[in-house]
C-alpha cells in the first residue's frame, strides 16, 4: 500500500507544481479541480489526498501559502510557487523528458537493433 502512495504522491506533487506555475496562486479545491480536468480519472480516486501532498511541498519550501478570501466569501488557503519551486519544477521536467525518451526508444526497438 505504501508503494502506490509513493508513486501517486510523486506525480501528484509534479502536477500541483505545474498547475501553480501555469495558473498562478490557487486554493486547494481549485488545484484539485484543475488537475481533475487535465488528468481525467486519476484524481477521481481521492481528492483529499492532495492536502498531505500540499503540506509536504510547503515543508520542502517548493510552495508557500497564505490565507485569502475565496469566491464564496469564505477564508481559504492560497498556494503559490516559490522560486525554489520553479527550479525544482524545471529539473523534474528535464528528468521526465529524459525518462520518457529513453522508454520511447525502447518501445521502438526491433530485433535488428540488437544484432
Amino acid at each position, binding site marked *: 500500500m505504501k508503494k502506490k502512495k509513493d508513486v501517486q504522491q510523486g506525480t501528484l506533487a509534479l502536477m500541483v507544481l505545474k498547475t501553480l506555475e501555469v495558473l498562478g496562486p490557487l*486554493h*486547494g*479545491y481549485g488545484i*484539485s479541480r484543475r488537475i481533475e480536468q487535465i488528468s481525467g480519472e486519476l484524481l*477521481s*480516486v*481521492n*481528492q*483529499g*489526498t492532495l*492536502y*498531505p501532498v500540499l*503540506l*509536504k511541498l510547503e*515543508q*520542502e*519550501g*517548493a510552495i508557500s501559502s497564505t490565507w485569502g478570501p*475565496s*469566491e*464564496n466569501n*469564505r*477564508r*481559504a*488557503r492560497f498556494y503559490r510557487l516559490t522560486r*525554489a519551486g520553479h527550479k*525544482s519544477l524545471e529539473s523534474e521536467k528535464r528528468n521526465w523528458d529524459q525518462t520518457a525518451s529513453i522508454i520511447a526508444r525502447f518501445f521502438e526497438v526491433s530485433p535488428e537493433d540488437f544484432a
Partner: protein
Amino acid sequence: MKGLHRLGTRMRNLVSNRRGDERLREEIEHHLAIQTGDNLRAGMTHDEARRQAVLKFGPVDTIREEYHSEESLSLIENLLLDLRYGVRMLRKTPSFTVVAMLTLALGIGANIVVFGILNAVLLRPLDVQHPETLYQIRHKTWMSGRLVTTSYPAFDDLRRRNHTFVGLIGINAYSSVTMRFGNFVRAISGDEVSGNYFDLLGVEPALGRFFHAADEHGPGSAPYIVLSDALWQSAFQSDRSVIGKIVELNKHPFTVIGVTSARFHGTERFAWPEYWIPMLNEEQVAGSDYLHNRAGINVTVIGRLKPGVTPQQATDDLNGIVAQLAREYPTTDDGLPLRLIHPGLYGDDADVIRGFLYGVNALALLVLAAACANLASLFAARASDRTRELALRAALGASRSRLATQLLTEALLISVMGGAAGVATAALLLKALNRWPPAADAHLAAGVTAPVYLAGVILTFGSAFLFGIVPARHAWQSSPLEIIKGAVADSAYVRRFAVRDLLLGLQIAICTVLVTASLVAVQGMMYALHAPLGVQPKGAMLVDLDLSQVAPSADLMLQKQREMIDAALSVPGVTAAGAVTRMPMTGGLHGIPVYEPGTTEFRMDNYALLPYVFSMSPGYLNAAGTRLLRGDDVSWQDTSRTPYIAIVNNTFARKLWGEREPLGQHFVLWGKLTEVVGVTEDGKYHDLAESPPPVVYLPFSQNQSDEAIFVVRSRRPASEMAGALKRTFGRIEPNLPITIQSWTDLLEDELLPARAATVALGVMGFLAAMLSVTGIFGMAAYTVSRRMKELGIRVALGAHSVQVVRAAVGRPIVLLGVGSLLGLIASVLATRLLEQIVYRANPRDPVVMTGVVLTMALLGLLASAIPARRAMGVNPSTLMRDE
C-alpha cells in the same frame, strides 16, 4: 536540500507540538463547501450534494492521519506513545515491575562493580610514559610474592651488558625509615631506586625536581629524597617551601628536592611508596650495604625495551648475560634463566590476580545472564496473558512491528530503570571500596570512569534486548484471527513445552554453577583458615620499633633487645615474649643455601638445601606458639665465642637426615659450621599454598640483625595490651616511633585476597540463589494461575492433593532438577577455571556436591511452596462460577 528543509520543519513541529488540525479542518470545510455548491448547481438535492462531496473527498480521518504524519516525525511520536503506554502497563502490576527492576539492578550493579575493579587493576595503564614497553625481570620459575629478583651487583652487570633495553632501573620497595623534620617523627616506607628511575619512566615532578643518574657519584653521594604527593600533604601540609629543606632519615640528612604528581604511585598498583631515594644511598638508611653484596637478593629490575625489540629477544639476551655471570661468580650467581612480565601486580602474583578478576567478571556476567533469562520467562508469561489484547490491536490495524516495538519498549523501560539503579549503587560501592583500606599498604583507585559507564549502558541495552526479544517474537507470530476465534484453551497452551521452559532450565543451570562456585569458595576459605600455620596468632601482640637508631653497635643492639624483652615480660598478664627478624607470611623471604659439613667450595649448584633463615631471641618460639618437638630453645649464652647452633624445623631435619636423629647433626651456613640443638614443627612462612619449607632459626646473640619484631603473648585483650606495651617500651626509648598490632590483624591483612575471593563468590552465590527462587516461584505461580480451572476440574473428579500439586508445580520442579544437574556437570567441567579463583578449589568434593544438591532442593521447595499451597486449596465450585 529540500529533504533537509522538510526534516527541519518536521522536527520543529514535533518539538513545539504544533498541530495543523485547525488549518486542515478549515481547508477541508472550504473544499467540501465549494464541491457541494458545484453539485447543487449540477442538479443534486441538498443531502445528495453534500454526500457526494464527502465521498469524492475521501476518508477524512485517514487523510488527517496522513497529514499529521507528514507534519511531524511519527517515529518519535510513536515512541513517546509507546513509552507512556508502557509506563501505564507497568504501573498496573507494581510487584512485577519492582521485582524485575530489582533483579536487573542487582545483576547490572554487580557487573559494574567487578568491571570497575577490573578496569582499575588490570585495564588502566600505569601512570608512566609508554607503559606497554615496560617489563619486569623475573626468574623463569613462577614464584608467588618475592618482588625482588637479583642482587645489586648483578643488576649493575645486567644494566651494562644488555643490548636490548633502552635502560634498566633497579628498585627496592622494602625501604622503611624513621623521618625527623623539625620536631615531628614518623615511620614511613618507600622505594630505593636507581638514578635513572624517573627519567626512564618518563614522569615529571609536580614540584621541585627529581634526581637523575648524573647526580650519582658513587655510594652515599646523592642524599636526596623525593616525596609522594600523599606524604607531602599529610606530613608537610602541602607546604611549597619544603623544597630544599633537610630531613633526617634514620638520623642521616637528606634534602627534599621534589614532589611527584598526585597520580604517580610508582610501578606497583597496590603498594604506593611514600618517598623515593637513590639506591646508592641505601646504606645510610638501611644500616648495611647491599650494593656490594652479590649474595643478597635485594633488587627488583624493570626495563624499557628498545623500539623494535621483542620481549623474546630481550629474554634471550638477558639469559646469555646470566649464564656469563654464573660462570664468573659461581659462589653467588645461580645462572637460573629469567623471563619478562609486565610490572604492577606484585610480580608473578599478577597471574593469580588476573585469573581471579577475569573469573569473577565472567561469573558476574553469568549472574546477569541468569537474571535476563529469568526476566525473559516472566515477560513471556506476561505477553501470553495479553494475547487477546495483542490480537485485537492487530485486527484493528496495528502493524506487527508496532506491536513488537510496544513490547520492547516495556522491556527497555524496566532495564533502563534497573540499569540506572544498578550503576548508581555500583558507583557508591566503588567509592566505598576506595576509602576502605583493605590492608596496611594496599590501595585501590577504582573509579566510575567512562569505560565503566559505557559498560553499564551496553549491559542495560543488551539485557533489554535479550529479554524483550522473547515476548516481542511472540507478538510477531501471533495470528489475530486464530486467537480471537479459538480462545485457545489456556491450559493446553500452557502445557506445551515452550521457550519459557528452556529459559527457566538455563537460568537454574547458571544459578547452580554460581552456587557451586560459592560453596567451593567457602570450603577453600575454611581450608585456608584452618591450615596449620605453625604459629598461634591468637593472643599475641607485635611491637615494631627501629632500634638501629639508638644502638649503633651489635653489642648495644643485643643489650637493648634483651632489655625490651625483659620489660615486656614484666608487664602483668604477659606469658611469653621474644623477638624475631621477620614475621611469617609477610613476604621478603628467600632461601639461603646451606651445605653439608666438609664442603669447601660454596657455589650455587652444590648446596644441600635452601631454607628460610630467621634470627630470634630466646623465648620467641614460646611467644609465637611454635612447638619445639625435640631439644632446647636458644639462649642468651650462645655467643660468637661459643659453638654456632641452630634450631631447625621438621622438614629441614627430614630432608637432610631422613629418619636419623637430628640433634647433634651439623651443616654449614654462611661459612660457619652449625650444630642442631632443637627441632620445631612445620609451618607456613611465605604463603598459604606452599608446601612446608625448610626453616632455620639462629640465635640473635650469634647472628645479629637490626631488624627485629617483638612478639608478646598474654591473656589480656588486645586493646589493653597495646596501651600497656606502648607505655612500657616508650619508657625505655622515648624518642622512637612504636607500631603495635595484634598478630591476628596482621594475618588478616595477609589473608585478605583469599577472604576477598570468598566474599565475592559468596555474594554471587547468594544472588544466584535469589534468582533461582524468583525464577521457580514466577514459573510455578504463573502455571498455577493459568491452570486453575483445569485443576478445579481435576479436584472435582477426585484427584488427591498430591496429584494436584504434581500437576501444578511438577513442571518447574522437573526443570529445577534438570537444570541443577546440568549446572553441576558444568561446574565439574570448569574445575580448572574455579581453581584460578579459589585456593584448592575442588567442586568434585562430595561435601560440596551434597551441599549444592541440598541447597537447590531447599530453594525449589521454598519457591514452590506458595503456589503449591494455592493449588491444593483450589475450590472447584468457586472456580466454575467465576469463569
